[in-house]
């Protein structure tokens, strides 16, 4: 479509990271997480958690990005992301919305495991 109109030639293409692929979107993980840790809904993606993250200083772990993956239902990148957290809890203290961030990661890991065993 884009190439047909030629708009992408002028820099108006959709940024890949902003594209939502509805075919691969899996809402089950998000639903599991919101039911187990309702405070997940409170997140307004300020990124405070990511700025303070202990694991984030050593690798590309990014809790804010992880939230985006969960909301969009992108399971593949999420699978990799949840393994990096150290559960240290710094994000919990900086979160201005009182999201129980540690449990979000723990429940997300649990959801992925259940998904693999077809239990979700």
């Amino acid at each position, binding site marked *: 479509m884009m190439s047909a109109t030629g708009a992408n030639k002028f820099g108006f293409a959709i940024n890949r990271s902003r594209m939502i692929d509805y075919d691969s979107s899996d809402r089950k993980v998000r639903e599991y997480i919101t039911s187990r*840790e309702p*405070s997940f809904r409170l997140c307004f993606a300020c990124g405070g958690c990511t700025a303070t993250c202990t694991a984030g200083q050593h690798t590309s772990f990014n809790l804010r990005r992880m939230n985006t993956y969960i909301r969009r239902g992108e399971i593949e990148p999420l699978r990799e992301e949840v393994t990096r*957290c*150290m559960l240290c809890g710094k994000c919990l*203290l*900086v979160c201005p919305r009182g999201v*129980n961030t540690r449990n979000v990661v*723990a429940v997300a890991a*649990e959801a992925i495991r259940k998904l693999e065993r077809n239990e979700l």
Partner: protein
Amino acid sequence: MNSDLFVIPFNLGLYFILIYSVVRSVAWFRSLSRPDKLRLQRGFFGKPFMDSLREIFMESLLHRKIFRKNPVLGYMHMSLAFGWFLLIVFGTIEADFFGEKHLNPPSHAIFFRWFNPEHGAEGLARIYNVWMDFLLAFILSGLLLAVIKRFTPRMMGMKKTTRHTWTDRLALTSLWLIFPSRLLAESFTCGAHGSGSFLTGNLGSALASFLPAAEIAPWFWWLYSLSLGTFFFMLPVSRYFHIPVELFLIFMRNSGITTGDKHSSYTEVQTHACSSCGVCISVCQMSYAAGINDIQSAYFIKGLRNDRDISAITANCLMCGRCEEVCPVGIELGPMRLIERRQGERADRRLSLPERYSVMRKRSVTEKVPTQSYGYLVREEPEKAEVLFFAGCMTHLTPSVIAAMKKIMESAGVKYRFMDEKGGVCCGRPLMLAGRDREARELINHNSDIIWKSGAKILVTSCPICYKIFRESYYLEATVMHHSEFINLLIEEGSLRLGYLHRKVVYHDPCELGRGSGIYEEPRAVISYVAELLEASQERSMSLCCGGSLGNLTLASGKKAMIAADAARLLTMSSPDELITACPLCKKTFVQATKTKVSDIAELVAAALPAPSTRVARRRAARATVRANDAG
């Protein structure tokens, strides 16, 4: 004699419970690990054996620990346990001494009055009867308190009492019926025969004055025997199984067996030794400050005993350790919960009655699949240092504590290296508290490598959470010190010169440092050196949790705030100028919960350092004198 048939329920129950207890003990013994078996065998000789006997007398019969916490509750337990014990012992002696022959079956002692209705008219037997009546009255007074406690726990100084399952209720009812039915049975028999002492005699003659005592008496003897028999049969499937199991537990513990990190027959014994007394519920801050009343240790243990899915209960605990501190049975509740957290999911099973009687229960032990991995961590080559300072993740959120520690160590001339200045790796304790030991081990290995390579003699940390795991799960050559211990050392050495601050302060023991690691004195010594330390209403081993604990993965922030507000209120009752703590997490939590200034112990000490300007001035003055002397 046909009318003696009533002894059958009692006899059946008694022989059932005796055989069952022996069989189950043997099964538990057999499934112990080899070293634990040897420990237990050695525990039956010498000092451990004497210790066990003393403990059984002091705790299982007299209930000294409960007495200390709450005299009324202690009296209730003592009258039932010790009173019943005495009644059995003296009843046996009575039957042996005054009965027709020696070495009677137990039923002859228990139902002595039925078999000897005329007994105790004169002489020694008369005095003995007063004693037996006194014992019965002693038990009945405890029973009255127990009934009051069940219906109005607050009257007994308990904030809450435990909710029970139907087997517990049936056992409880039969237990409650035992002593009143004995009283009435003996009274009716005494009334019919004109015997008995101050209790059974008087009540008996009163009842006999308007009732046909001789006809009614057998009914109550039947009730007495039936309630005893029911109680014995319900024992293994109710909380009252703690009575025999606790004896076994005491022997195991005094032999040196500990909980460890896996389910074993020791955890099984601890599970059954829990009496669901509810003392743990009473001290739980989650209960009285946040209104969460279904996760306390009594319910945790009960869920474990009945093989229920208790994952939500297991996770929802601050791991503050207050319940373990007060548990009258001495169950290692913290380690038990951690074992359960380490487990994978457990199917929720409603156990059938026969299953509950099974001697060895098969419990699905599935280990948690690792979900985290830290292959991305790069090994570091640290510089050599005598003293290594590890601030910890949480301390990085309280930069004032780091600044204070730097100031203190510079002032004392300590040559240190700041291990995680640019952000280190988590110590692993939060993962361990979440039941993820394998993942924690990866972080432990990473940090241990850095500490070993640095060649440090002392590892100082500002975070009690790190401190606990450094001490317990790291294999280090360096001495691990919390900064309060280190500052205390510097003061004792004389390398730290401090002024006195005219402030009144209260000290809050962080859970991981106080109950968790037993560090109570050092922080107090440091604080008393620089300021006036007031007493807190609940401190040392009974100190409160700030509510911010990383031990609880699931508690909502609103509930945490409720716990924090309650704890802060109790701590600042004496209206101190400052609330001092030794944990960055406690500090962060309390700051939002109280108007009182909250500081870390390091900040307090840093404030007591002589101001740099005056030091510089003093040095200048000293130099000036030297110069003047040189010139002179």
